[in-house]
């Protein structure tokens, strides 16, 4: 920046540029370190979940057990297994297997030198620390899988989410097309009315709809969770309409001159152009439905075989609260698909939120 500066000035400028670069480097490192620490604390519960799920049931009941999944170190001596402890001796701390515990003394064997025979150690063995080694325990996963009837719950969740997403996306495309491309009386009023329904709490329509479904025999089936989504939801329509408005009208007009009708234009002009927005709406709705708890709880309370994962997991949690390892394993299994999908399609997710500017 100071190419024409006199020779005398050069070292000085170079020095300050270097200092500036240094300061920038320090700022970047500091900020990145801060963010890393913060995000680690923020996501710590996930580590807790993983560590707990892989622990054995017995490890969780031992007060001084390590935080990571581990098994007690054992040593087999003369055909029997003994736990290994850290024993303070004159030559420092030794890892010895406890073969005969007494009140004020204990008999140990040195696993590295069993030929030396039993060693009597004076002291209270209960004050000693047990030796653990890292070991993953998978039994919680298979237990959760069986107790929760996981394949069934998984199928229910996917089926309910997929059917409701199908309805939501198809109807939203249709309605967004109507709002973005056609002039009809009362259009703006209807659009505002639709946006206003966003703040309408669902409870205010809940009981009459429940009563109607009850009389139709739909309570205890998936229908109340699927059918209403075939009638377009305000969030999805809003997001798609905003995107459709950015598609140039010349494309429609060209297709119209070629003799295409409105349905044809929607199918072969609008939809192909709006794929990113449609993908975002599909993902949002699918995982919103995957996550939904209140309505499945209301309508499927008495039908455990038809419940989605959210409700099944909640019920499971209240029944097995004494078995943290199994519960955390179940939580992992329930979140695996949404989280993996999120990493695969994160751009669509993150863009979709900002683009729509609305929250589900």
């Amino acid at each position: 920046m100071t190419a024409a500066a006199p020779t005398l000035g050069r070292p000085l400028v170079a020095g300050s540029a270097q200092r500036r670069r240094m300061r920038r480097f320090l700022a970047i490192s500091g900020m990145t370190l801060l963010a890393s620490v913060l995000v680690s604390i923020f996501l710590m519960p996930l580590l807790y979940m993983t560590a707990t799920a892989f622990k054995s049931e017995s490890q969780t009941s031992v007060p001084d057990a390590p935080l990571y999944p581990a098994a007690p170190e054992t040593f087999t001596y003369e055909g029997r297994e003994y736990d290994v402890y850290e024993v303070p001796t004159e030559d420092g701390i030794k890892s010895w297997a406890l073969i005969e515990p007494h009140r004020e003394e204990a008999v140990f064997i040195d696993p590295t030198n069993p030929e030396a025979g039993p060693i009597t150690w004076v002291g209270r063995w209960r004050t000693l620390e047990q030796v653990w080694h890292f070991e993953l325990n998978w039994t919680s996963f298979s237990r959760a899988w069986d107790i929760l009837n996981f394949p069934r719950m998984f199928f229910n969740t996917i089926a309910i989410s997929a059917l409701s997403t199908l309805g939501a996306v198809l109807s939203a495309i249709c309605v967004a097309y109507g709002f973005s491309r056609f002039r009809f009386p009362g259009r703006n009023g209807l659009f505002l009315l639709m946006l206003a329904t966003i703040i309408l709490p669902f409870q205010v329509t809940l009981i009459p709809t429940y009563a109607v479904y009850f009389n139709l025999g739909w309570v205890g089936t998936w229908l109340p969770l699927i059918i209403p989504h075939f009638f377009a939801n305000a969030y999805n329509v809003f997001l798609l309409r905003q995107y459709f408005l950015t598609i140039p009208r010349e494309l429609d007009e060209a297709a119209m001159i070629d003799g295409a009708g409105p349905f044809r234009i929607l199918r072969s002009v609008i939809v192909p152009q709006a794929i990113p927005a449609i993908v975002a709406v599909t993902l949002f709705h699918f995982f919103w439905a995957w996550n939904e708890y209140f309505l499945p709880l209301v309508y499927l309370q008495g039908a455990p075989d038809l419940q989605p994962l959210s409700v099944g997991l909640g019920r499971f949690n209240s029944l097995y609260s004494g078995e943290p390892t199994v519960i955390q394993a179940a939580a992992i299994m329930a979140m695996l698909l949404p989280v993996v999908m999120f990493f695969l399609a994160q751009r669509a997710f993150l863009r979709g939120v900002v683009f729509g500017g609305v929250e589900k």
Partner: protein
Amino acid sequence: MTTDTASAVPTKAVLRRPGRLATRDSQERLFGLIFVSPWIIGFVVFSAVPMIASLVLSLTDFDPRQADEIHFIGLANYARMLDDPALIKATAVTLRFALIVVPLTLVFALGVAVLVNSTVLAGRNVFRTLFYLPMQIPVVASTIVWIGVLNVSNGWLDIGLQAVGLPAIDWLNSQFWVHPALALMGLWGIGNLMLIFLAGLQSVPTELYDAAKVDGAGPIATFRHITVPMISPVIFYNLIIVLIATFQYFTQAYVITNGRGDPGGETLFFNLNLFREAFQFYNMGYASALAWVLMVVVLGLTVVLFRTSGRWVYEGGSR
């Protein structure tokens, strides 16, 4: 929002014969209504009629198990609210929780947004993704994870507290700590708020920051006098979203105590109380009345916020 409609129509109309125009226009009207009809039908069937019906039901003692024995009881359900201890408790609990959770969530979401918007942060997209991530975890699963983390005997939060010499807290069984614990849990749901804040931060013109720098403003002064006023519409929007979500708070409260509202009724939130009245006690007339009160509160809050927004929300260019 839809200003593009009015402009082009008259000029074209002059050039065409009235007859053909009428058919084209009526055709367009017809197709428009056809395409929008799914929403119109849905609105009538699933929103408008049920809303009126629930207003009517709120004046009765409706129980779906004995639907024939429904009686009109006037405003008795609304009168009952005034001395229903469960409802009074639920309302107080919800309001007290809002006082903690709304500011905490907004401040944390804004702080994270500022952090992941920083120009001196390496790997900004990675951090954005990671802070958003918990949003994608099903709420029941994340609640279960937090129940474990907040557990007094082997939860990591208490192990951490004890490691720095603080006493362990039985978060979810303490009437005092259960709200802070749920608010902490709620921080996992900041994803969308953060992204909306981020979009707001990115729309602040950089000239303003340059000008502030020239004037010698430090980072805190810049944030207070430039960033906050410039993103006030976004803060306002997020405030409404969080407030409404607090009045609808249900899943976490239901999962931690299986819907009992423990400890000491401190998690008997308004929406949980409504659920219990409707689907455990089958007092559906009363529950309809509660739903209408909820709606009036939510609408009222939104209206009040919109009315007062002129005083503190900066609308670009309008003034």
